[in-house]
């Protein structure tokens, strides 16, 4: 059946597909709006519920670019009379949107300076000649760079470096277990690493922004404290998984190590602009960690201050900044956060949360497992920011209903949303790694299935032990 659908989708002209994938969600929305308002739900909540389903389908089928989808979802409550324009545009101007802009400027600067290549090669080099260690260091290279820049940017930067080494080692596409583990490991490393700091992916500031809107503060250090154990444990567990399912076929990576050393030797000495960027980067991280405790500066302000310092210091020209900010994600992100806020304010989120609880149970453990699995399911089939934006208000409502701290359920949604492993469409990182040709879809499916199980266990273990120990709940 899947093959038939894919075949038809490939066979139909793009315009026809766009009409179908835009028309079907619209039809669904109209049908939902024509149905009587369910008991316990306001009319505005009813409309927002319809818009939520419309958004799910739009984010899933992508008839229009996600940025346009974000704008469409933003204005629909106004068009359908569920919210005032001033309220909608106020929610779009959330501080987390500006954090994202600052983060993209910082990421662009890192890319321009070539620091990413130094970090990646340094990690790859420490593996020595051991193929198992090489898989781990590839994951670490992706993960560590994702601490300071968005994961999708990282995978794009490190995949050519990794591919150059794999080609140099004459590893055969599809046949080499090392190449499979390394390329899949790079994608997974970036995804897992992106959880560690708010800089790793748009869904992180989205979660912070949503919590902030509801009066719950999560600063840079809090985020790192909550996420870091999950990152470390997941990296180790997924690395073990990869080397177990694909044991390296070669014992000695001398050739790869030689190529890495050659590449390191080719790197020019650190230039004064690169040193300035490193200083600004450390300064920025320092400010994120300390300033919110002593001043009223928040993450977004510090990110923008850092971006402006980078610009004034002459590390980036305006044209380069423009080239490094994907405005689509900023628009999409604004629409997504506005959707979350409107769902909460209209009462649709709490109604949905109650509905889920009625259908399941009030046990915190079971509810949290359901939330994690829902987040993972959605993030596997749609943009992870979209999945998180849809689930945050529901997770918040569920936490309120069963009396557990909303920070716990919302953080779990935010973190699970970044762990998409199984499909090519799950995250750009997966398909970018796939384009190297070293692994097939079935390999990703196999590794991703087990990686999902492993990371669900890790999330639950950390949430119910470490988070309890540090007083989250």
């Amino acid at each position, binding site marked *: 059946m899947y093959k038939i659908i894919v*075949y038809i989708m490939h066979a139909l002209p793009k315009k026809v597909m766009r009409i179908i994938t835009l028309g079907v969600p619209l039809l669904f929305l109209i049908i939902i709006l024509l149905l009587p308002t369910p008991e316990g739900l306001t009319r505005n909540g009813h409309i927002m519920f319809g818009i939520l389903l419309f958004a799910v389908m739009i984010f899933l089928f992508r008839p229009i*670019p996600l940025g346009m989808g974000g704008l469409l979802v933003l204005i629909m409550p106004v068009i359908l009379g569920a919210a005032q324009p001033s309220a909608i545009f106020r929610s779009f101007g959330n501080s987390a949107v500006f954090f994202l802009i600052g983060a993209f400027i910082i990421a662009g600067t890192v890319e321009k300076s070539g620091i990413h290549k130094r970090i990646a090669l340094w990690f790859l080099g420490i593996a020595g000649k051991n193929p198992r260690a090489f898989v781990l260091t590839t994951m670490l290279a992706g993960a560590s760079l994702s601490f300071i820049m968005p994961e*999708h940017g990282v995978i*794009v930067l490190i*995949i050519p470096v990794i591919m150059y080494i794999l080609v140099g080692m004459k590893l055969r*596409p599809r*046949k080499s277990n090392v190449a499979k583990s390394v390329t899949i490991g790079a994608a997974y490393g970036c995804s897992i690493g992106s959880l560690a700091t708010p800089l790793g992916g*748009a869904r992180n500031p989205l979660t912070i922004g949503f919590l902030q809107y509801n009066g719950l503060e999560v600063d840079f250090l809090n985020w790192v404290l909550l996420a870091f154990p999950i990152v470390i444990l997941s990296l180790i567990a997924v690395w073990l998984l990869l080397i177990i399912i694909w044991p390296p076929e070669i014992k000695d990576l001398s050739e790869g190590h030689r190529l890495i050393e050659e590449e390191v030797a080719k790197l020019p000495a650190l230039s004064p602009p690169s040193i300035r960027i490193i200083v600004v980067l450390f300064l920025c991280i320092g400010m994120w960690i300390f300033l919110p405790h002593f001043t009223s500066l928040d993450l977004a302000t510090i990110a923008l201050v850092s971006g402006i310092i980078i610009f004034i210091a002459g590390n980036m020209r305006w044209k380069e900044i423009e080239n490094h900010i994907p405005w689509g994600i900023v628009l999409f992100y604004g629409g997504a956060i506005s959707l979350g806020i409107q769902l909460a304010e209209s009462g649709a989120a709490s109604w949905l949360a109650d509905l889920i609880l009625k259908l399941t149970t009030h046990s915190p453990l079971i509810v949290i497992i359901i939330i994690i699995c829902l987040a993972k399911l959605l993030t596997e089939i749609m943009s992870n920011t979209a999945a998180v934006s849809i689930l945050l208000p529901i997770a918040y409502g569920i936490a309120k209903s069963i009396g557990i701290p909303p920070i716990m359920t919302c953080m779990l949604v935010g973190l699970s949303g970044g762990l998409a492993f199984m499909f090519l469409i799950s995250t*750009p990182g997966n398909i970018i790694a796939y384009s190297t040709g070293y692994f*097939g879809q079935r390999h990703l499916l196999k590794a991703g299935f087990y990686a999902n199980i492993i990371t669900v266990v890790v999330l639950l273990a950390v949430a119910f032990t470490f988070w309890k120990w540090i007083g989250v709940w």
Partner: protein
Amino acid sequence: MFEKILIAIPMEEYPEKAIVRAREIMDKWNSEIVIAYVIEDNILDVATDHSQHVLTEKGEKDWQNKIIKIHKERAREIVISDAEKTFGKKIDHFTVVRGMYSDVIIDLIKKYSCDLILIERFPQSFIRLRILDSSPVHVWVERNPGNIKRVGLFCTNANPNIKAPPVAREIAQHYKAEFLSFFIFDPAFTMNRKLPGEISRSHDLVWEDILEGKAEDTILRTVKKKNVDLIIIGRVETYRLFSLRHTISRKVSCNVLFIR
């Protein structure tokens, strides 16, 4: 027959079995070999499509250029050297092209005047099988390496298959294989009961069996029953959602040659 064979290597699979078969065909028919490494647009497009909201246009272009450059390098460093080892000689024509797999093949057939396309059937590669619909020359779908001991010609009432019988006979002779020919009456088409006799007379064929039933199912059943190693089917128009060509190449466990 088979003067120039085209093997199009997709970027995600190395068609080892197809290359081994090409070597065998080359030895038997003294064919020239054309190898093309295809950097597939659909894979790059999907990657671009899914990263468009997180990458700028410049970021996408930079990334695509880097990936294409490394793929070209890999084609030259690994793919061609592996193929040359199998052929035991320098490849006559080698090229790296970018585009949709089936479109690229059509262009290459015109450019190099090839008369056979050799592809390998991979589990996930059904989209590439579109070449079966658009190819102007014969397509050999390699599935099962090894010696060809039984060649099965399948004719149906959907199409007279005037080119298939002589090709099938020649291949069977070259392989010193047993030649089996079957006629299938598919109820979906006009049941001209005289057709088997006409084909038999004009091509001097003796039908092993004249069967009746849905063509796909009947072919699959017969191939299994008679242990056929190579199926030869003439041109059959698409008449269901998946054409006979698609169904056979997806489901059958032996090799298939589609005659055009």
